[in-house]
């Protein structure tokens, strides 16, 4: 069974630490070009390879990632 997923990042609360980027098995996340209101470059979903595994969200110290997943 295959899954397709997506994530929603609260970009104003993201601190750009990049721990999520390092933990994504499919390298779907990257840092934004611009900055949020705190001056941090924030994490963004940058490819459509997300499988909704939640690895990024589990390691996010600020718990700003929500993960959605559907069976396909």
């Amino acid at each position, binding site marked *: 069974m295959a899954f*397709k*997923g*997506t994530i*929603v990042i609260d970009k104003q*609360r993201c*601190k*750009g*630490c*990049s*721990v999520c*980027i*390092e*933990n994504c098995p499919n390298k779907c996340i990257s840092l934004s070009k611009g900055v949020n209101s705190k001056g*941090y470059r924030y994490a963004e979903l940058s490819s*459509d390879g997300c499988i*909704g*595994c*939640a*690895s*990024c*969200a*589990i*390691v*996010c*110290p*600020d*718990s*700003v*990632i*929500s*993960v*959605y*997943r*559907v069976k*396909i």
Partner: protein
Amino acid sequence: MEISDMIKPENLVYGKPALLTDNVMHYCPGCSHGTVHKLIAEVIEDMGIQDKTIGISPVGCSVFAYNYIDIDWQEAAHGRAPALATATKRLCPDKYVFTYQGDGDLASIGTAEIIHACSRGENIVVIFINNGIYGMTGGQMAPTTLLGMKTSTTPYGRDAKLNGFPLKITEMLAALDGTAYISRQSVHTAAAARKAKNAIRKGFEYSSKGVGLSFIEIVSTCNSGWKLSPVEANKWMVEHMFAKYPVGDIKDVLK
């Protein structure tokens, strides 16, 4: 399927636990403290013990832990969390009581309190954040600082002749009869964080069985104190900290 069609409540598989408050954490970007807070919140939520849990926060970067997990808390003087937890648990034996302490707090100024709480076999849980440094006060050497590791008070690296050896306090505490479950974990990957969560849950379960003290060390990073990026700090931890502080269960009296 379009992304917008996926973002629906019924498809949500992981999000911030409800027990974490909406306060923005004061921790530096990538600090392990935030991840451990989340795991504790998840365990309390999963066990449905929000109204039965009392946390004791330390002095150190996690001094404000009480702002982030929506349970009852007390704030202890530096190193005294195990003493406060002892009183709390003895006065309220039906509550789950845990301390949350850094390595400076637990293994330096609070050495006496943790040793005797373990020796007495208090039915509490201790979460020990070992980042090998005094994070809050500007990155001074801690008892747990590795040999050769540079800190603001060991600018040329920790030297055994001058500064003594790193203290493996977790193994010391395992030798005491009053400890029931002792484990060392980390939270740098999703797999590691899941194991750490299981260990924390076991600690909470044991504390209600009256079998003694449960102690979960989390080998952590202080990327600011270590002067590395958060991702580099995690790599440095795996390469250097794990050699001295290997992860896994150390003691389990019910096994």
